[in-house]
C-alpha cells in the first residue's frame, strides 16, 4: 500500500486548513473588524510552520518505518484456535470415557488440567493477536486522516482537545506501521505455535481392545502420523485418529516378540459416540510355553520342545512353573530364563529361536508417563534364551528354571493417537515458541517502546507547543511584514 501519497493528500488538507485560518485572521479579524490580531497571527503562523516542520520530519521518517502491510487474517487465528480447542476438548471427553469407569479420577483431572492449560495459553495468544490485528485494521482506516488531526491540534495547541487530537494524529501516523509490524509478528508467532499444535486430523475414535494371548503383552499400534503402545493389562479402549488406518505393528511379551493376527470388528450398533469397533488381537509364541510367573509379574518361560529318547518306564511332567521332572527320558527344552539347573546331565546352548526386542513405554514427556500407567524396563536383565538337552537314564531328574527380571505393566490411559498428541502439547508449545523466540522478544519490546514514547511525548512535549509556536510565528511574521509592506505598495487595493 503506497501510504506516502495518501499522506501527502492529508498534509495538503492540513495546509489548506492553516491557509484558511490565517486568511480568516488577517482578512476578517484584522482588515474588516479592525481587531488587534498580532498575538493570534503569531500563534497561527507559528503553528503552521510547526506543522510543516513536523511533516517534513515525519514523512521521511515514515519511509524508514515498516511498510503498511496487508493485515493478517484475524479470523484465521480464531479458526485455528477453535480447531485445536475442539480436538483437545474431545480428547478430554475420550479420556473421561476411558478413565471414569475404572475410577481413575486423579489421572483424568491431571490430564484435564494439562489440556486446559494448553487451551488457555493458545486462547490468550490468539485473542491478543486478533486484538492487535483488529486494532491495526482500525488504525489503517484512520491513517490517511492523521495529518488532519495534527493540523487541527496545532492550530490551537494549548487546548485540551488539541492535545488529544495531537496524540491521536501522531499515534496514528507513527504507530500504525509499527502496530502493523507487531500484528504481523504476533501473527507469525501464533502461526508458529498453532502449526506445530495442529492435530493430524479432525476425527477421533475409540476402539475397544480384546486380546487373546500371553499376558500382559505390550502392543504397538501404528497410524499414519503416530505410533503408540499400551499394555494389555488394564486396556479396554484405545483412542485413535479416525481418519487414519490402524495397524498392529508389534506384540511383545516378556521382551519376546510374539506372532500375532488381528482384526477390527466394526460395531453393528452403539450408543457410545465415537465408538468405532473392537480391535481383536490373537498372539502366541511359536509353542505353548509355560510362563514363570507369580502375582508380581512374569519372570521367563520354558517349554519341553521334544522328547529325544525314551527308555522303558520313561516319564516327564511339570511339577510347577519352574520345575520339570523327568525319568528315563532325554528331553529338549526351550527356555527364556536366567539359567537352568538339574541333578542330571544338562547340555545348554544359547539360541535365538524367538526374536527378542527392547521395549519402550509411551513416547511422551517423562513427567506425564505415570499418568498413562506403568511399563516394563526397556531391556531384560539376567535372561538367556537357551536350548537345553536334559538326559536322565535310569535315574530321576529335577530340571529347575531360574527366573530373570520382572516383566509387568498396567495401562491406565493408552497414550495412543490423540491422547499422545494432547500430552505432547506442552512440549510442542515450547518448541513453537522457541522457533519464534526472536519475534516474541521483538514484538514485546516494540510495544513497550511505543507505549513509553507516546506517553513521554504527551506529557513532556505538548505543553511547550503553545509557547514554541508563538515564538516561531513572531519571528516569521516580523520577517515577512516588511516584505508584505512592499507587496501592498505594489497592489494598492
Amino acid at each position: 500500500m503506497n501510504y506516502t501519497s495518501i499522506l501527502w493528500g492529508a498534509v495538503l488538507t492540513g495546509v489548506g486548513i492553516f491557509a484558511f485560518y490565517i486568511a480568516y485572521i488577517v482578512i476578517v479579524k484584522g482588515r474588516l473588524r479592525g481587531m488587534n490580531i498580532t498575538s493570534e497571527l503569531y500563534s497561527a503562523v507559528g503553528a503552521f510552520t510547526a506543522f510543516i516542520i513536523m511533516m517534513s520530519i515525519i514523512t521521511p521518517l515514515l519511509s524508514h518505518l515498516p511498510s503498511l502491510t496487508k493485515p493478517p487474517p484475524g479470523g484465521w487465528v480464531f479458526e485455528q484456535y477453535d480447531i485445536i480447542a475442539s480436538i483437545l476438548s474431545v480428547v478430554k471427553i475420550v479420556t473421561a470415557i476411558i478413565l471414569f469407569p475404572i475410577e481413575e479420577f486423579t489421572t483424568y483431572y491431571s490430564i484435564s488440567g494439562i489440556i486446559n492449560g494448553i487451551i488457555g495459553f493458545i486462547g490468550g495468544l490468539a485473542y491478543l493477536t486478533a486484538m492487535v490485528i483488529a486494532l491495526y485494521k482500525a488504525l489503517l482506516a484512520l491513517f490517511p486522516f492523521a495529518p488532519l488531526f495534527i493540523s487541527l491540534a496545532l492550530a490551537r495547541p494549548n487546548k485540551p482537545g488539541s492535545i488529544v487530537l495531537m496524540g491521536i494524529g501522531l499515534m496514528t501516523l507513527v504507530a500504525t506501521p509499527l502496530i502493523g509490524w507487531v500484528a504481523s509478528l504476533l501473527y507469525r508467532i501464533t502461526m508458529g505455535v498453532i502449526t506445530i499444535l495442529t492435530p493430524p486430523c479432525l476425527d477421533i475414535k475409540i476402539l475397544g481392545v480384546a486380546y487373546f494371548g500371553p499376558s500382559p503383552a505390550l502392543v504397538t499400534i501404528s497410524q499414519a502420523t503416530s505410533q503408540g503402545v499400551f499394555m494389555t493389562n488394564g486396556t479396554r479402549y484405545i483412542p485413535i485418529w479416525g481418519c487414519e488406518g490402524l495397524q498392529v505393528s508389534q506384540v511383545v511379551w516378556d521382551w519376546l516378540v510374539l506372532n500375532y493376527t488381528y482384526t477390527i470388528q466394526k460395531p453393528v450398533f452403539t450408543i457410545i459416540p465415537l465408538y468405532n469397533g473392537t480391535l481383536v488381537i490373537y498372539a502366541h509364541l511359536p509353542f505353548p510355553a509355560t510362563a514363570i510367573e507369580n502375582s508380581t509379574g512374569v519372570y521367563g518361560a520354558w517349554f519341553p520342545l521334544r522328547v529325544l529318547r525314551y527308555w522303558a518306564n520313561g516319564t516327564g511332567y511339570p511339577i510347577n512353573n519352574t520345575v520339570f521332572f523327568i525319568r528315563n527320558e532325554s528331553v529338549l527344552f526351550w527356555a527364556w530364563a536366567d539359567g537352568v539347573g538339574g541333578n542330571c546331565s544338562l547340555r545348554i546352548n544359547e539360541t535365538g529361536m524367538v526374536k527378542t526386542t527392547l521395549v519402550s513405554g509411551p513416547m511422551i514427556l517423562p513427567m506425564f508417563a505415570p499418568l498413562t500407567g506403568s511399563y516394563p524396563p526397556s531391556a531384560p536383565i539376567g535372561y538367556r534364551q537357551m536350548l537345553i538337552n536334559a538326559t536322565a537314564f535310569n535315574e530321576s531328574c529335577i530340571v529347575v528354571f531360574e527366573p530373570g527380571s520382572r516383566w509387568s505393566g498396567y495401562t491406565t490411559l493408552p497414550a495412543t493417537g490423540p491422547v499422545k498428541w494432547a500430552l505432547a502439547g506442552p512440549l510442542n508449545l515450547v518448541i513453537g515458541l522457541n522457533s519464534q523466540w526472536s519475534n516474541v522478544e521483538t514484538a514485546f519490546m516494540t510495544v513497550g517502546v511505543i507505549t513509553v514514547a507516546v506517553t513521554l511525548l504527551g506529557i513532556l512535549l505538548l505543553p511547550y507547543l503553545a509557547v514554541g509556536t508563538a515564538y516561531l510565528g513572531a519571528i516569521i511574521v516580523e520577517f515577512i511584514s516588511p516584505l508584505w509592506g512592499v507587496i501592498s505598495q505594489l497592489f494598492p487595493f
Partner: protein
Amino acid sequence: MGITSLLNLPYGIGIVTAGVELAWGLVKYYLAPTPSQRREVVDEFYSIVIGAILTAVVAYYMSIGPSIGASIASALGVSVTQVQLSDIPKVMYNDFNLVMGQYIANQVITFAISAAGAVLGATEVLRPVGSALGSLSSFLNAIMAPYNRALVATMMNTIALAALGQVMGVMYNYGIGSLSIALLLPSRTRRIGAWLASFILVFSILLPLVAGYQDALVFNYGNVFTMWISTIEQHCSNNTILQAILSLFLNAPSWLKDAINIIADFVCGITTLPWLVTNTATLVSTGTFNLLEGDIIIDIVMGIGFAITAWLADLIEAGARALFEVRHL
C-alpha cells in the same frame, strides 16, 4: 404549524431564551441614556437575531444528523442502519439484550451440561456418561471463550452508546441544542454553551452513525451461538437414532425436552466430529473477529469524537466571542 407551536420542545427553550434576550435588549435600548449606548444595543439585537437563526439551524441539524451520519458512512463504504437519535437507547437496549441473551444462553447451557454430568456422575452406573457430559461442557467453554469475550466488549459498547443516546435524546427533546446556541450569546454562559454546542454538533452525526454500525454488527455477528446450535440441530435432524430417542420424551416437560434435545444434538454432533469442528471453526471464528474489530473501531471513533468535541468547543467559544461580543463604543 401555528406560531405558538414554536414554543414547544425541542425549539421552545432556545426561542424563549432568545426572546428574553431580545426583550432585555429592547429594555436596554429604551433605557439607554446616550446614542452610543443605544448603538451598542442595536449591535446586541443583531447578535440575537443571528443567534435565533443559528438556534433553528441547530435544531434542524439535530433532526437530520442520523441521515448525515448514514451518508458519511456510506461514502466511506460502510453500510450502517439509520437510527434516529431518540431511538438509539431502544435500539442499543435491544442489541444489548440480544448479545446478553447469547452470553447467558452459552453460560446456561455450559453450566446445565456440566451440572447434568455431575448429577449423573454421582451414580455408579452412569458415571462414564456424567464424565462425558462434564467434558462436553468444557468443550463448549473452550470454543466459545473468545466469542464470549467479544460479546462482553460488545455489551460494554452498547451500554455506553445507549447512555450517550439517552443523553442526546434528552438534549434533543428538551431543546438543549437550541439552548446551547442561546447560551453562546451572554458572555457568562458562553463557555458551557460552546461545550454543549460542540457536543451536539459532533454527536448528532457521530452517535447515530456509530449506533447504526453497532446495530449492524450485532445483527450480523451477535447471534453466532444460536446459529451454531441451529446448524447442529439441522445437521442432526436426519439422524434416525437420535430422533427415535427424542421421540421417547415427547410427553416430557418442555424444559426437560429442550435439555435432552440440546445434549442429544451435541452428542450427535460429536459423532460426526470433523463436520462439527469445521463448522464451529468457520462460524464462530468469523463472528468473533468481526465483532471484535467492530468494537475496537467504535471505541477509537468515540475517542476521536470526544477529542474533536473538546477542540471544537474552544473554537466555537472563540467564534461566538467574535460574533456576539458587543463592542463598547
